[in-house]
């Protein structure tokens, strides 16, 4: 076998290599594991990687292929998994001390569906604790570095997943997106990150942060791989009553059959995302170039308006923290997880949670508790839910005038470690372009668009589409990236 090149290799190329017997799944997995062993000391994307277990799964895939019975074209291809998406027998710490001792007794639906196609869950990827953060600096265990510049953050909360793909530690990874946690790190690391429509992918086995916003999605090198993974994981699930019963599939074929032109496509530019939005000049330059590119590919550009954009951060940090304060109430050191014994039951709760949660998680639990507390519920939580309706309607109105929207993903490129940790509100405000999408429930994708002339760091752009329109979103992404 010739030296196996892993750098920036997408799933579909590796699948072709497996089919042509250029390499075996065991060789592939061993090569990725070697690469992780050699380079992850610097990047720190993985919280854990069990090489032997992955190799065993790869050998089983090779045996199936030799017998002419592979589970799919992708049997034996490794996929990195964010640590909040549980897999049987694996840790699911969510990068929190409070869950450090726990091993999941079951597979999340997303992981089970990957396994059913022969994909190999490959390691546990670092994240901001309980997915709360935009830089991976809130992990209780390690700070993941951006593979494009190790003095910078990879973004968050799925920073480990983005770094894993960008560093070619696996061809693709799963992340989760509550307010931009797939799209922002994808933009920071120069890869593709898809947030599917709310309910497209079952949340069963995704440790809940904000249940009405959370969604699992693929982080990949290109649109076709995002389609391949979405084909594998999407679709209704009796274990998640909020999963959508709509037929899901054919996403990869949609990309394969895409016309390669944007003729007839109306792409909206929401003016609130461009004027006075604090875009760094390099991001603005690349975004303008992307706009010109979609125009030259045949798209018609129309200005649209999402007038309640300026309230999205406030609405998000009320709704997400309210839901989080309720969801994280279950971590009390009684049935599972780390327990700090106190004088009695209540004191044990206080100590376990006080020592088990990091600062940002505490901050959000406190904010969520405050906005739900007696006397404040109507003023904050109920009011935020009403403004969420207005934000959702903004999108409905905009899509009467266009098929998709194009926006920036982040106001700046990946920042340096420690640059934003002192002021949590400033960190929250950097989510401005990603969070409205979660509030609306629609789908969106972060796409590499170029490099910042000043720093050389990747810049992403975002395509947004109406609910259930992932196929078109992926086609446009593919056309744009060609």
């Amino acid at each position, binding site marked *: 076998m010739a030296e196996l090149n892993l750098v920036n290799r997408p799933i579909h190329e590796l699948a072709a290599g497996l089919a042509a017997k250029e390499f075996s799944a065991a060789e592939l997995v061993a090569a990725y594991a070697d690469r992780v062993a050699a380079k992850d000391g610097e990047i720190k994307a993985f919280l854990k990687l069990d090489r032997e277990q992955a190799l065993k799964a790869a050998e089983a895939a090779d045996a199936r292929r030799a017998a002419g019975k592979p589970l799919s074209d992708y049997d034996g291809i490794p996929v990195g998994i964010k640590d909040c998406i549980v897999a049987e027998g694996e840790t699911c710490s969510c990068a929190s001390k409070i869950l450090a001792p726990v091993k999941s007794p079951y597979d999340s639906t997303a992981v089970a569906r990957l396994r059913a196609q022969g994909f190999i869950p490959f390691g546990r990827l670092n994240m901001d604790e309980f997915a709360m953060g935009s830089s991976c600096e809130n992990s209780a265990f390690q700070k993941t570095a951006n593979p494009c510049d190790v003095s910078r953050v990879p973004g968050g909360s799925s920073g480990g997943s983005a770094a894993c793909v960008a560093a070619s530690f696996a061809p693709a990874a799963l992340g989760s997106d509550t307010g931009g946690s797939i799209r922002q790190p994808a933009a920071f690391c120069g890869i593709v990150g898809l947030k599917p429509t709310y309910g497209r992918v079952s949340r069963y086995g995704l440790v809940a942060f904000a249940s009405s916003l959370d969604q699992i999605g693929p982080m990949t090198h290109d649109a076709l791989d995002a389609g391949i993974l979405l084909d594998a994981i999407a679709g209704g699930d009796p274990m998640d009553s909020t999963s959508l019963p709509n037929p899901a599939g054919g996403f990869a074929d949609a990309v394969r059959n895409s016309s390669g032109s944007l003729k007839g496509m109306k792409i909206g530019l929401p003016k609130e995302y461009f004027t006075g939005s604090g875009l760094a000049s390099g991001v603005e330059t690349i975004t303008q170039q992307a706009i010109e590119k979609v125009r030259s590919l045949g798209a018609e550009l129309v200005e649209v308006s999402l007038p309640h954009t300026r309230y999205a951060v406030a609405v998000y940090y009320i709704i997400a923290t309210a839901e989080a304060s309720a969801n994280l*109430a279950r971590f009390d050191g009684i049935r599972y997880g780390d327990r700090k014994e106190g004088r009695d039951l209540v004191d044990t709760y206080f100590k376990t949670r006080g020592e088990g949660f990091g600062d940002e998680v505490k901050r959000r639990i406190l904010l969520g508790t405050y906005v739900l507390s007696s006397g404040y519920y109507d003023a904050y939580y109920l009011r935020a839910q009403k403004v969420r309706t207005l934000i959702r309607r903004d999108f409905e109105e905009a899509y009467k005038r266009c098929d998709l929207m194009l926006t920036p993903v982040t106001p700046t490129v990946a920042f340096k470690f420690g640059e934003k940790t002192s002021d949590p509100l400033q960190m929250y405000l950097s989510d401005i372009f990603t969070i409205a999408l979660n509030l609306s429930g629609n789908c969106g994708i972060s796409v590499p668009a170029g490099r910042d002339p000043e720093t050389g760091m990747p810049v992403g752009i975002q395509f947004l589409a109406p609910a259930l329109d992932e196929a078109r979103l992926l086609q446009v992404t593919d056309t744009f990236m060609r």
Partner: protein
Amino acid sequence: MEKPQIDIKYVAALARLEIRPEQAERLQNDLQNIVEYINELGELDLTGVEPTAHAAALSNVWREDEAGTPFDRDRMLANAPALMNGDLIRVPQVLPGEGMN
């Protein structure tokens, strides 16, 4: 708008969260700044606007009330922080009074 005053100890007690004294002031400041920011929602007229609790327009998702395959008992117990007699989860004393073992 006036900066909101938040009693961080009261909120932390509601959340069953121990806050170290040296953390309390900073968390209180952070929270007050964030709440001051989110107070901007007060300027909107929301008369007649229905709240959105959920993005997916699903309702009444029922399933048959059938027994399924339960998780393996030993594997669930393996995650418990403390056991009693090998198959019970030991919890700290709930009611005040004489200690028990």
